[in-house]
């Protein structure tokens, strides 16, 4: 009896996730009345979405090649910090990064100031290149980490052999590095392509206009400006088809393992120019650090004089974030512990659906019964929980499998089952990955600027939305203060959870 009950728990969790994703999708498809022909502006959005995603993927992976190679073969002071910094954009709120990028590359930014000294015109950041800049900022580090993993997986003996055979750089590249890149780079590019397909906050702030609108942004515009729910639903179906197709292609490619650690091994090599490698390393470090520094410099002064609305929004955001962590871990734990294969499909549901599509569906479902803005915060927490679930599963499932492989027999022979097994074996050994998953979820939910834009009324806002509103009102100092606060909260939350998982987690 108890055994059967335990078997049911992962099923219930899966059913909940399935309902949370599939019901809104059904609502969207039902409202859209199937696939009806798109108007010209919607087609523009489709093309722009595909085009910017393809360019973002190509640029990110292309630039990551020299950077990852430099990191793979150079030992220098601060290398570990730089590799850690490469992980930071993942939990950096998009809107914070955008404000930082504006401060560096914007019309009144540092770069324009510098150009003005030479009598050159200011840079224009809005439009396709602004979107690309932001996407590369977020995805170059991801691509670098994936490729760095690939480089480190090349056995050191091959480089030693190459050195004894006196390979020239080109031979080295052709015979040793190119085969690895051909295996890993397409998968990395595909991952980035899929991520950029659902780009909303970047397009919202740096894109816009008929020439730079993604489908996700078009959904928002149909919602907020045209009050045309039917069109929003139609666009949501389009987004669903795009993301679904891309996810199917991605599944066919060998996807590199998104390593979250273990990038500290340096393979000794005897080739390459120190100068060139140094150039790439410095470039990527500056590219990542300058926008963050700009937020710190501009935000620090404004932090003390932030309006109450910002503090209020920060409180809401902390609640949303903690709510998302609670929901994600509650769902992820039984799913991660289940040894069934279909659990991976549950994770895929979260990847294939986008926040704005889910948001549209939930709006359609909720609207007939209660005012959507009354549930803006719970809905935001729930959607973020679903979005974070694939990451949590990716972290927890291998860890849970390893615990079973190493200690399962001992636990069986001691008749440790159910809650006792959870208490004595699983939870203590899963602490670190649980803390890490909680930290990621918390930071992602804290910084999310997506579904909340559909549901919020003028009086409620999460911190990212409040920040966006301040930017829209050109109160840039206050926006920078809010950005710094958001940055501190996101990283702080991640740090607390991650630390909590590590503390006393000795073996």
């Amino acid at each position, binding site marked *: 009896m108890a055994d059967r009950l335990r078997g049911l728990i992962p099923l219930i969790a899966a059913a909940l996730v399935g309902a949370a994703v599939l019901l809104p999708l059904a609502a969207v498809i039902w409202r859209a009345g199937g696939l009806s022909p798109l108007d010209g502006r919607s087609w523009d959005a489709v093309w722009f979405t595909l085009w910017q995603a393809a360019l973002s993927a190509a640029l990110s992976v292309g630039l990551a090649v020299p950077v990852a190679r430099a990191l793979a073969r150079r030992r220098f002071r601060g290398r570990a910090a730089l590799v850690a910094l490469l992980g930071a954009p993942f939990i950096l709120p998009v809107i914070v990064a955008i404000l930082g990028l504006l401060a560096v590359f914007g019309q009144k930014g540092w770069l324009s100031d510098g150009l003005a000294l030479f009598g050159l015109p200011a840079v224009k950041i809005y439009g396709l290149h602004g979107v690309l800049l932001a996407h590369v900022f977020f995805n170059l580090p991801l691509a670098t980490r994936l490729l760095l993993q690939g480089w480190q997986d090349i056995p050191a003996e091959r480089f030693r052999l190459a050195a004894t055979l006196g390979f020239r750089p080109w031979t080295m590249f052709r015979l040793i590095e190119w085969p690895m890149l051909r295996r890993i780079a397409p998968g990395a590019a595909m991952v980035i392509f899929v991520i950029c397909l659902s780009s909303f906050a970047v397009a919202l702030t740096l894109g816009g206009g008929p020439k730079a609108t993604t489908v996700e942004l078009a959904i928002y515009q149909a919602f907020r400006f045209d009050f045309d729910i039917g069109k929003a639903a139609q666009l949501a179906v389009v987004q669903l088809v795009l993301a679904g197709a891309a996810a199917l292609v991605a599944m066919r490619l060998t996807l590199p393992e998104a390593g979250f650690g273990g990038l500290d091994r340096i393979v000794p090599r005897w080739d390459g120019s120190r100068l060139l490698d140094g150039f790439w390393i410095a470039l990527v470090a500056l590219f990542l650090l300058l926008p963050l520094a700009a937020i710190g410099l501009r935000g620090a002064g404004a932090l003390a004089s932030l309006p109450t609305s910002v503090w209020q929004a920060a409180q809401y955001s902390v609640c949303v974030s903690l709510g998302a962590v609670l929901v994600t871990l509650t769902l992820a734990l039984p799913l991660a512990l289940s040894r069934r294969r279909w659990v991976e499909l549950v994770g895929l549901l979260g990847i294939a659906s986008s926040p704005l599509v889910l948001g549209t569906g939930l709006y359609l479902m909720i609207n007939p019964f209660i005012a959507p803005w009354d549930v803006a915060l719970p809905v935001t927490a729930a959607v973020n929980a679903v979005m974070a679930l694939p990451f949590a599963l990716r972290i927890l499932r291998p860890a849970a499998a390893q615990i079973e492989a190493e200690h399962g027999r001992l636990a069986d*022979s001691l008749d*440790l089952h159910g809650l006792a097994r959870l208490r004595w074996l699983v939870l203590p050994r899963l602490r670190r990955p649980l803390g890490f998953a909680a930290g990621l979820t918390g930071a992602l939910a804290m910084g999310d600027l997506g579904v909340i834009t559909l549901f919020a009324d003028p009086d409620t806002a999460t911190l990212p939305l409040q920040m966006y509103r301040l930017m829209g009102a050109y109160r840039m100092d206050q926006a920078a203060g809010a950005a710094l606060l958001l940055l501190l909260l996101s990283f702080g939350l991640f740090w607390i959870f991650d630390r909590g998982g590590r503390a006393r987690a000795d*073996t």
Partner: protein
Amino acid sequence: MLTLEGLQIIQDDFRLCADWKVAKGTRVAIIGPSGGGKSTLLAAICGFTPATGRVLWDGAGLDALAPGKRPIAMLFQDQNLFPHLTAAQNVGLALSQKRLTTDQQMRVAQALARVGLEGFEGRKPAQLSGGQQSRVALARLLLQDRPLWLLDEPFAALGPGLRSEMLALVHQIALEMGATVLMVTHDPEDARKFAQMIVVVDQGVAQAPRDVDEVFANPDQALQDYLGR
């Protein structure tokens, strides 16, 4: 009495059969070439590996029972302790899966003292030497109070001196508790010192147990091949 009734284990192209009895309180060494299925035999008796035929203890079939419900305590080649739990917690799991009562804590301390680890309650496995870790596992075996012990080369990682020390301790405690012991080993000398009976596993058959002295006095072909004589 442990009875293996037409026990057969088939995995891909590996097969092993056993059909014999062991009287209560007997210490049996299981020897044979590596890959022959010594560990698999123990895993099948304990219920980790599926097998056809029957395993009985005192005439009662064990086949329907999960490993933890069988009257069996097992020591593996490694991972015999949970690394995140203290020695006392590891040993305590033999008594209760809840918080230990004062009385139970006393018994844990006594068991640790019995294996020579007085005052080691709070240590975690990483703070113990290999030999000490084996002793903690042995203390747990002591409190588990199961009549049948299956030892799958638990001391293989220890040096020869430490190993025979541990074997002597197991020998002693098993005698006190009246436990029936099946121990896999690849060292004939260990087998001779520890066991009363020998099971040779070779060519897909776990032969019926025979008296140690007799086996070593007149080794059959399988044993000769193994011993390299």
